[in-house]
């Protein structure tokens, strides 16, 4: 299954990864190599085989009681913020919807 530079660009966009042109050429080559390698899986007969999402088949997700506990103090929440505005995280103006969501 050949992977084209367009494929890589499209996927980079899905992954929100800005690639600079130098990155891109090397990356495309490496992606092609790996995809070619993993393509050997197509030869395996998996008819009727259930996918294995977890090593534990048939387990059920643990649940917790609906009790509220205080979270982090607001200063700790914002401690690693690249750009803080009062008690908020600041980002470039989001204008598309022009409105609170």
């Amino acid at each position, binding site marked *: 299954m050949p992977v084209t530079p367009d494929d890589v660009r499209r996927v980079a966009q*899905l992954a*929100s990864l800005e690639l600079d042109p130098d990155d891109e050429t090397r990356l495309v080559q490496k992606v092609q190599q790996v995809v070619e390698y993993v393509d050997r899986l197509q030869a395996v007969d998996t008819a009727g085989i259930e996918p294995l*999402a*977890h090593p*534990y088949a*048939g*387990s*059920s*997700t*643990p*649940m*917790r*009681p*609906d*009790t*509220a*506990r*205080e*979270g*982090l103090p*607001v200063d700790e*929440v*914002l401690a690693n913020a690249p750009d803080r*505005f*009062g*008690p*908020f*995280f*600041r*980002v*470039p*103006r*989001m*204008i*598309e*919807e*022009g*409105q*609170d*969501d």
Partner: protein
Amino acid sequence: MSTPVTAGTAVERPYEIVVGLEVHVELTTESKIFCSCPTRFGAEPNSQVCPVCLGLPGTLPVLNRRALEQAVRAALALNCRIQPVAKFDRKNYHYPDLVKGYQISQYDLPVGYEGWLEVGDPANPRRIRIRRVHLEEDTGKSLHDQAPGASVVDYNRSGIPLLEIVSEPDIRSAEEARDYLMHLRQVMLYTGVSDARMEEGSLRVDCNVSVRPRGSDVFGTITEIKNLNSFRSVVRAIEYEAQRQWEVLSAGGTLRRETRHWDERREVTVALRRKEEAHDYRYFPDPDLLPVPLPADWVEEIRASLPELPGARRRRYVLDLDLSVRDADTLVGDPGLAGYFEDLLAAGAEARAAASWVLTQVLAWLNAQGAGIDAFPVPPARLARLLRLVDEGTISMTAAKDVFEEMVRTGAEPDAVVEARGLRQISDQAALLEIVDRVLAANPQPVADYRAGRQQALGFLVGQVMKETRGRANPQLVNDLLRQRLSSDG
């Protein structure tokens, strides 16, 4: 295209409107869906956040049991089939309010599917099918009016449990859409699953609208409308968008499948400026959570704990108790009021009379006080006694209203008030006949007028008897006796 179409012109439209609604409701749990942060409304920004709902590196989700119960409860109340084993999937996309770069949601095994909700006249309802009901986590909230030239994000809302309820495109008018939403909201209130208030954001609606020529069964191009803030916006947006689409098609144009934004101020839908990106969410099962079995016996327990639901109640009120659709809707729409009404029935009151009292006298008092039914000081049994006194003819309706007022004000028992104020109606036929004969004798002209065909003369004569008895005669009886006398002597 600038003139909005007004409601009520449906019959004249050459096209059929086809609507599907995608509704999100916030659950009423104490804590968030995957962490223990509080869900209280209106807290200081970023004060209800922990490493998990902030999406810090290394954190993991743990499911809130009550959120799952609420989801099953809602799905059952919407007549859904319940998945034997549900699961959570990741919906991957980037946005500043989405802390993990993916939302934990449900893709192919939602909690509930293939349900329905009935709208319209209970005697002849229309069934709107519900495709799915699933659980997911909410995102943070971005605000655009806090920091100059920038936006800011508050993550208090991140991780609040949401139910997403998707209908099939079975809705055929803007009004029906509003009906569906009202009914849906009532189900949420009755089951205690959500407060479902659009103005508080605990009920959010996205509309999918398309049109087609009348009689066609092919679906047209769909537009998704976002940013609807009230039921009224929903109605107006659907009508606007349907008309817009029809005009494009009629002029020979083609429609794009797109998302449009409802502009509340200008009352139009607007295409979003940014390039419509392909939404490849790359759903896959969330590996941080295990499967969610929904065992049949547990589901049945939840089903058994459901109260009488709005649909069933509406049907019972209209079809069994013979209330008007309008009265039934008002009662069903206010569970507290309906509860009081039910208590009146349990205390022996007749249904139509009870409904009338609740929706006029009681509701008027509540509105004047700005109070809820819990503040109403007259216990149902006591009011039922008052209704019985009217029903038996012991007091007139007018007198009853006075008694009601005093009962509310002083907490007195109706019988005591009636006796103390001498409001007992005269219903003794012999005594009344005596007075009727006296009045007839004293008013020969009105008698002649009545016999000559002037019905309103009767009213005058009734008034005279009431005057003689100082308003205490049973007016219905007086009416009957007068007619009897006037016809027999003719």
